[in-house]
Every structure is written in structure tokens, then in C-alpha cells.
């Protein structure tokens, strides 16, 4: 039934572009909403899907190996939630039918790409879906057609192309070794064939490609510009899920199912992870632009995910997946908040803002929830995933990494507190008397996301037993 997650958005795109375009333009938002809701409800309770068998017949025409495990389920859920938030933000900020229609089309394309990435079990198909997602992202970054946006899109295209080239050459090398592109056969081939320069360079090249896609240091150059220049809804989309799926998820999947945990891979991941955490956090401390600070914070948080992965243990993996989930939720919420602030005040420069909590209490409150969750303050969700990652590191004997990672969370708290101080928590400036709370269109996604953060934090034992530990186990097995 999961092939319907690809087919449904695909058919919707086709349907939207059939004749009766005027009618379709009106329907675009609703159609996209429905597709996303179907995806979320399919993950939350799979049993509601009574038409699953019929659609699998259609699915068999697709030339892809789809398989869904717990990790994919977690990702599919995140994708649904974040795309929903992006859709609401775009709908609220831009009230032009034509542009919403264009946005929805590309959004559905990206949805196909990301759903594909998390479900395929074949390295070449993975590449194809990565490209679909990337092309969709280029278009959306340049959606507002201003100079900054084009520059950011251009930067993203160039680095993405580099990543593509690296990935393709790695796939070619792996094909030489294994003769097939499916995960399992490459994995088997790597196990049996002796260590050679060919294999290790293929692995290293592929990992580098993933690091570029995830925006990890030292490949982070494109990330801050892209996030801050892109339209609000697109920043939500990119920061919340796109870079996490194409970068972090791909790394987790490939390292797990294909390359396996070898000490050299682990130490590479640990080093890149810890550098990203520390440098990302330090860079975020120096930012005075709301969205740029969030962008650097993203680098730092993805570092934690990679660090968890680098442990190579089940617990570490579980922590990485959990943090991936939490990160997409709280970072999406923070970008929704930044969209609200940008819309109401017309700026994201934090020096020009102060004391907005008086005028925008709801935005301020949800941003506090998201910030504290990101900084790993209990009882919010981010604390538990960071705790699991730190525990995994400590148990595996990486004491230094554990200490650096946990001290970096003090830095995380420091920059989020300065964000709060500059934007929300403080005296209101006299010239900002006319600012009002953002409308329901922005408050609704913010509310849902904040509730998820709090609920996951409070009911984490349930979450961890049902989703996270199984995700770690299945991968390990």
C-alpha cells in the first residue's frame, strides 16, 4: 500500500494540470492538503487503509523496490507534518491563486521525491528521487524571483550538482564491485570483497556527497544563504525536512544498510558530527538575523544526528532517528515563528526587534517551546533524543565526544536565549505599537507543532517503545 504514497501525489499533479485549469487552481490547496493528510493518517493508523491491496497492483508497475520499516515510517510522518506546515504558511503569506497553484505543484513533486527517498531499497533509485527533490527545491528557493533568492538557488544548484556528480561516480564504482544496485547485494559484495582502494574511495565519495546535501561543516557554505534568502514557506520546507531527508536520512540509511559500521566510517562520522555541532553553534551565536541563526542552528543539530549515527550502536541509531524527528518538528516550528515575525514586522534583523511577546504572545510562547526543545531542556522532546545520543556515546566509550556534545548544548541554549532576548523577551519598542499577532493560518501549524513537541516530551516512554527503539533495532538487524 505504501506505493500509493508515490502514486497519489503523482496522479494529483497530473490531475491538477489537466484542462479546467481555472477550477483546478481553486482546488489546488485542498488537493495538496488531502494528499498530505492521507499520508499522515496512513502512518498513524495503517489499518484505515482498506483500498491498500487494489493500489498495490498499480504499484507493481513501478520499477522500484519499495520497503517500509520503522525508520521510513518516522520519516514519512515528518514529511507529512512539515509539508503541511509549509503549505499553510505559503497559503497565509501569499494570497494569489496562481502562485499557490504553482507552489502546490512543486510541493507535490518534492513530496514524491522525498517519499521515494525514504522507501527505496536501491541505490540508483535513491539517486533519482534525490534529484527530483533537489530540482523541486531549486525552483522553490527562487520562487519569489528576486536577486537574493536567485543567488541562493544558484548556490544550491552548484553545490547540489557537485554532490550529484560525487554520488553518481560512487554508484558507478560500487556497481563495478557488486554488479547490482540494490542495497542488499552491494552490502553483500562489500562484505565479501577484500578491502581495496576502490571500495574505500567509493564509500568516502558517497559520504561526502551526503555531507554536502546535509550541509555539514565543512560543506555548509550554501546552507545559511539559502535558508535566509528563500521565501518563508520554503525555508520551513528546506530546514524542516528537505535537507534532513536528502542528507541525514540518506546517510543513516546508506551507512546502515549498505556500508555497515566500520571503525573508519564511524570515526569520520563522529569527527564531522562534533565539528558541525561546535562550529554551527558558535556561528549561530554570532548571528543577528533570525533566519540565519536558525540556519546555523540546523547545522549544529544535524551534527547531533550524525554523532548518534557514528556511535554505531542500536541506542545511538535510535537516538539519531529520534533527534531527526524532533529536529524536523522544532526547526519547522521556529521557521514558522520567523515567518510570523517577518510578516508582522517586515524584518528578520533581530537588532531591530524587541519585546514582541507583548504583541505576539502566541508566537513568543511557541518559540520558547521550540527553542528549549532544541537546546535539550527537559521535559521537551529534544532533551530525550539528545540524552539518548549522549548515553549511546558514553556507553560506547566515546567519553570526549559525549562531553563536547553535551557542553555544546549549553552553547545551543546560549544562542536561543539571545534570540529570545532580542526578539521576544524584553521591552517593546515604542515604534512597534501597531504590530499584531499573526493570523490563524500561522497559529494553527505552530500550535500543532508545539503540541507535538510537548506531547513527545511528556509521553516519551510510549514514543520510544513504539517507534524509536524499533527503528534502531530493525536497522541494526
Amino acid at each position, binding site marked *: 500500500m505504501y506505493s500509493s504514497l508515490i502514486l497519489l501525489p503523482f496522479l494529483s499533479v497530473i490531475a491538477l494540470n489537466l484542462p479546467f485549469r481555472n477550477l483546478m487552481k481553486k482546488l489546488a490547496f485542498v488537493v495538496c492538503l488531502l494528499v498530505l493528510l492521507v499520508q499522515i493518517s496512513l502512518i498513524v493508523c495503517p489499518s484505515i487503509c482498506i483500498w491498500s491491496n487494489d493500489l498495490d497492483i498499480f504499484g507493481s508497475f513501478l520499477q522500484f523496490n519499495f520497503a517500509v520499516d520503522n525508520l521510513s515510517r518516522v520519516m514519512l510522518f515528518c514529511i507529512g507534518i512539515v509539508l503541511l506546515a509549509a503549505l499553510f504558511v505559503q497559503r497565509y503569506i501569499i494570497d494569489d491563486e496562481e502562485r499557490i497553484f504553482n507552489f502546490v505543484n512543486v510541493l507535490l513533486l518534492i513530496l514524491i521525491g522525498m517519499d521515494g527517498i525514504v522507501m527505496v531499497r536501491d541505490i540508483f533509485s535513491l539517486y533519482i528521487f534525490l534529484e527530483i527533490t533537489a530540482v523541486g527545491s531549486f525552483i522553490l528557493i527562487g520562487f519569489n524571483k528576486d536577486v537574493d533568492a536567485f543567488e541562493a538557488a544558484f548556490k544550491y544548484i552548484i553545490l547540489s550538482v557537485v554532490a550529484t556528480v560525487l554520488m553518481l561516480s560512487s554508484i558507478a564504482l560500487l556497481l563495478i564491485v557488486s554488479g547490482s544496485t540494490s542495497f542488499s547485494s552491494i552490502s553483500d559484495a562489500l562484505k565479501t570483497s577484500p578491502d581495496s582502494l576502490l571500495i574505500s574511495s567509493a564509500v568516502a565519495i558517497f559520504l561526502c556527497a551526503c555531507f554536502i546535501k546535509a550541509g555539514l561543516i565543512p560543506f555548509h557554505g550554501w546552507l545559511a544563504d539559502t535558508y535566509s534568502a528563500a521565501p518563508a514557506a520554503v525555508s520551513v520546507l528546506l530546514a524542516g525536512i528537505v535537507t534532513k531527508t536528502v542528507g541525514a536520512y540518506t546517510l543513516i540509511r546508506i551507512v546502515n544498510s549498505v556500508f555497515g559500521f566500520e571503525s573508519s566510517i564511524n570515526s569520520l562520522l563522529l569527527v564531522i558530527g562534533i565539528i558541525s555541532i561546535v562550529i554551527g553553534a558558535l556561528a549561530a551565536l554570532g548571528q543577528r538575523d533570525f533566519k540565519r541563526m536558525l540556519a546555523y542552528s540546523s547545522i549544529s543539530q544535524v551534527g547531533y544526528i550524525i554523532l548518534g549515527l557514528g556511535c554505531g550502536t542500536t541506542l545511538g541509531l535510535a537516538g539519531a532517528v529520534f533527534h531527526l524527528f524532533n529536529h524536523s518538528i522544532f526547526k519547522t516550528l521556529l521557521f514558522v515563528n520567523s515567518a510570523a515575525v517577518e510578516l508582522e514586522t517586515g524584518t528578520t534583523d533581530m537588532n531591530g526587534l524587541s519585546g514582541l511577546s507583548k504583541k505576539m504572545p502566541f508566537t513568543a510562547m511557541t518559540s520558547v517551546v521550540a527553542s528549549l526543545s532544541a537546546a535539550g531542556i527537559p*521535559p521537551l522532546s529534544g532533551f530525550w533524543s539528545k540524552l539518548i545520543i*549522549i548515553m549511546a556515546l558514553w556507553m560506547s566509550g566515546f567519553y570526549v565526544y559525549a562531553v563536547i556534545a553535551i557542553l555544546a548544548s549549553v552553547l545551543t541554549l546560549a544562542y536561543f536565549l539571545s534570540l529570545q532576548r532580542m526578539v521576544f*523577551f524584553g*521591552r517593546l519598542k515604542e515604534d512597534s505599537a501597531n504590530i499584531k499577532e499573526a493570523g490563524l493560518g500561522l497559529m494553527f501549524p505552530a500550535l500543532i507543532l508545539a503540541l507535538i513537541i510537548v506531547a513527545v516530551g511528556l509521553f516519551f516512554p510510549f514514543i520510544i517503545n513504539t517507534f524509536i527503539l524499533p527503528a534502531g533495532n530493525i536497522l541494526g538487524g
Partner: protein
Amino acid sequence: MRYDLVLLNTVLIPVAGAFILPLVARISLKTRDFAALGLVLASFVFSLLLIPQIMAGRAVIIFSQLPLGFNFVLTADALAVFMACVSSFISAIIILYSFGYISHYENQNEYYTMVVLFLGAMMGLVFAGNLILLYVFWEITAITSWRLIGFFREKKHVICADKAFLVTMFGAVLMLIGFISIFQQTGSFDLAVIKESVKTNPVSNLAIALILVGIFSKSATLPFHTWLPDAGVAPSPVTALLHAAILVKIGVYVFARLFLTTFSLAQFWHTAVPIIAAISAIVSAGAALRETDIKRIIAYSTVSQIGFIFLGLSIGNELAVAGGLLYILMHGLAKAGLFLCAGIIEQNTKTKDITKLGGLIKTMPVTAMAFLFCAFSVMGIPPFGGFFSKYMVFAGAVETGHLWIVFAFLVGAFLTILYLFRVFNLVFLGEARSLIQAKEKSPIMVTSVAILAVLSLVGGIFINYPCGFVQIILANMAGIIK
């Protein structure tokens, strides 16, 4: 009676109730104020209800198994119930005082929510029987104190709030590493399991050192004390809550919970911790002598007095531990009283600078007497409560033979007398220097400080009741203190 439900209510009522207060405020502001008081009083009453069980020698435990050793455990033993009663009672007085103090400021909803949540987190912390649960509540108190210190929203105030949050968070994450290292050794975060496991296999000194960093940062002990005087920018009831009654006692309590009831410290720590405490006590007492801001003086005094509590708890002698525990109560009462008096003075004269004040005893006689009573208790003048507890700490410390440490603390105690008399002299005696004729405006505020002052005296006269309870706590620690 279902004692486990009583225990659950002690924690749940303030934690959940705190979030209902903004809704109650829609009915009327007065209802909200009384609801806040009611929540805290309910918590106090429920903790009192636990006392008969403790007297009978039974601990109340709520246990539910969770994955990865994150068990949800609430344990009410004598130590926990003692702390719970002390904190909830002082919080109730502070909320009563807030009725007067906070009534003309903005953001009252946030204030009451945060204060009640703070108390709830404190209750959770004292009853927590699992290190991770303890850490969760530990950080909730940090979140609430961050909002409360920055309450007035001035840029400088928010920076102080951020500082307090960051310093305590720094300590807390190191402490968390210590907890994880204990987990690695014992395979559980559950204190009961840890207690059994460490009997044969003592906890590593590294873990203890890391946990001590957390404790010292929360209890504002040198070198992590600087956030506490800065936090004096908060509203006075908040400083009373943070500095005197509850927040700084968290570190002390966790010290007692871990190092006195769960596992014992190596001999080395019985000297090291008192030395750190002694330095902290003398340095901050010196700072208190130089300051001119009344709230900063009292804040430094807190840093100094916490040193005495640490001396009592760490020197490794039963009498000293009893004195340290009693001093948690007596210092809480007296220091809360001092801060609340400072709040009355600040609101009525619009200044916190003691060199600009004088002669207030004529216009504010009740406040002056309350201040004097509380100051006597902190100084350790008989028959006030502070005297007995300080005496027991000193007597116990002398028995262990660390005479130099005792001498250092005697100097600290002498300095305490000096700086408190200096404040009293400058603020209340002499000629009135302020042009404004200050009056004790709010009867409810004056009543609350009077209650605290009287209790400081009564606590000393009827010292045998709290002392009896402390004996039960000591019985639980048998085998861990030499």
C-alpha cells in the same frame, strides 16, 4: 488512605494547576490569585498528610517501569517530606506576599504560573526516586527561574536571567554526564537499584566530581555563585523564592539525597567539600560587607550561608548533618523574611541603595522588627532557630577534628554578624536620609514578613519538634554516615 495518591497529588496539583491559572484569570484576577495560593497550600497539606506514614517508619513509593532505566519513581521518605513541607510552606507565604507586591505590574498571569510551576517542579524534584526524573524537574526549575528573573523585561534583567540559566545549565549537563556514568556502572537510573549496587562497587570519583559541579552551580557556591547576586533584579518575592527558600536549596537537597542517603563519599570528599564551602562562605561574606545594594547583600549572604549547610552535610558527622538539615529550614524562613523585608523597603522608598536610606524604624516599625528577627536567626543568636542549627554544625565539625575548617567558618559567622548589623544600622537606624516619607503600605506584605520573623523565633524555642523529625531522617541514613 491511599498514600500513593496523596504523594502523586503533592506533585501533580501544582504542576498541572500552574497551567490552568491563566484560564482562571479570565474569571477574575482575584480568583486567580487565590487559586495560586490554593494550589500551593494543597501541595503543603498533602505533604503534611505524608508525615504520619514517615513517623511510622514507612516510605511511600510510586513506581512504574519505563524503558532504558528511565523508571518513573516517586519516593516519599523522611528527607523528601521534610524538604517538601519546608518549600511548600515558604512558597505559600511568598505567594501571599505577592498579592500585595505584584498587583501593580504587567504579566501577572505569567508570574503566578511560573511561581506555582516552580514549586511543583521542586516537589517533583524532592520526591524523585530516579536520576533522570530528578534532572527533568531540576531543569524545569531553571526554565521558570529564567522567566521570573527577567520578569521586568529590561534588557539588563533579561541578560541576568540568561546568565542564571546558562550557569546552572552548564552545571546541570556536567551533572548529567555524572548520572550517565553512574548508569554505565550500575545499569540503572533508579536510586534504589543504585543504592544496592554501590554497596559492593563504589561510585567513581569522576562521577562524584561532575555531580558536585552541578550541585554547586545550582546552590550558587564558589566559583559558580555569580549568577545569584545578579538575579537580584527579579521581583522581591521571586528572589526570596529563588535565593532563600527553594532554588538554592535544590543543590543542597540533591547533595543529601545522593551522598547521604544513596551512596557514601570517599574520605577525600569529607575534607574537600568543606574547604570549598569555607572559601565560598568567607569570600561571599566579604562581598556582602562591600555591597551597597540591599538585595545583593542578602544574596551574597545566601551564598555564604549555603556554605554552612554544605559544611554540615559533608563533614561526615551525624550531629553536623542534623544541624545542616535544620539550617535548611531555619535559613529558608529567615532569609525569605529578609528578602521580603527588602522588597517592602524597595517598593516604598523606590531605592535599593542602603547608603541612601536611614531611620526607617520610625516609619516602618513592623518591617524593622521582622528584619531584625530574621537577621538574628541568620546570625545565629540564641534563642532563634539559626542558633541551634549553626551550633550543631559547629559542634559536629569540631568532633571530626578539622579545626582549621571550623575556624574558617567561625570567621564567616563573625562576618555574617557584621554585614547584617551594617545593613540594619544603615537602613533602619540613624537619620532619615530619604526625602520620601516611606510607609508600610500593604498590610498583606507586612503580615507575611511578620509570620516569617515570628516563625524564626518560634522555631528556635520549640526546636525539639523539627529536631525530632531530623532524627528520623538520620535513621534512614544509617550506615552511610560514619
